[in-house]
């Protein structure tokens, strides 16, 4: 039971840790290439034609 709970904890910790590292990695990449090519700002309000169902 201890081994199983330790494994669950490890998966959770590595998962959350990876999410922080990868998000920082993505943010760094975004800043490095700021102004290059076409990029939509994260807080941009996009408008378009509403989807008709």
């Amino acid at each position, binding site marked *: *039971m*201890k*081994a*199983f709970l*330790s*494994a*669950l904890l*490890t*998966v959770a910790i*590595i*998962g*959350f840790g*990876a*999410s922080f590292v*990868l998000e920082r990695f993505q943010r760094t990449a975004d800043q490095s*290439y700021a102004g*290059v*090519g*076409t990029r939509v700002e994260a807080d941009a309000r996009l408008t378009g034609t509403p989807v008709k169902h």
Partner: protein
Amino acid sequence: MNLIAALHRLAPAILACLLMAAPVAAQQPNSVNPTASSVKEKQLLDALKPGGSEILSGRVSIPDSRAGNLIQPAGRDFRVTQQDTIPKVGAYVIIGMIAVLALFFMFRGRIRIEGGESGRTIERFDSVGRYAHWTAATSFILLGLTGLNLVFGRSLLLPMIGPEAFASLTQAGKFVHNYVSFAFALAIALMFVMWAKDNFPSAIDMRWFAQGGGLVGSNHPPADRFNGGQKLIFWATILGGFALSASGYVLMFKPPEIAIAGLQLATVVHGLVGVILVAVIIAHVYIGTLGMEGAFDAMGTGRVDLNWAKEHHSIWVDKVAMKRPEDISSARAPAAGE
């Protein structure tokens, strides 16, 4: 004089007409360079034909030069493989495995400990081994469910829960899939380091397979710490896990050195190996729980009944009795973690 006066009155209108005509003149064929390399419509149309094999690419200002590919004809075959072949193979392999196991259970039933429980136990896996196993198992369940959603979700889940819920679920699943993969890769590496030495094939395994591995009939062929079937599952997990990790990280990080064809190959490898490994692990879970009495204890408490060990791993029991007799209890020991 009247004519001159009339021209004066019409001058602004004439000037306006000349100005409006100027852009039209610029669009006349005479102003187009017929040898311009940027316009090769025939080449474009040829590449669009079915069976076309030419890659059309241009220049982009963003760092990822792969974004400059306008047409990659091999992408059509890739699309068919991804959207049609992999789901079909996955359905055949997974449903086929479940059907085989169900039939096997119907005819063979649960494999019992023939001598009954002895009351004595032997240590099968230490806490580090069980920790590695459960880390791989819990992460693989998350990876498997989120991965199967990518293969089958559009056709199975989307009609049931609707586009909004499916989109949210799939996006969350994609993040879980990416983040949890690191735990799986680490667990696979740990299991390889710990158990590879006991999983190399030997002549004993050939005899084990020749006698049906004890799955057919009541004969239990001798086996060392791991029998032939367990070795197959071990190497399928290690090699499959390595292939999934390598192809998955190629897709996650998309190294610029790898062309689009490489990314497509990684996608196909990831999908096919993934569905095959899911089927293999379903068989592993079956034999470790429902299919065989006493087997779950190996990863549950770490200790198995001595009679179970003698029936399924007789050579290993003899070795432990000689080298580490203290690993065999004289009476049932409390479960690890209790």
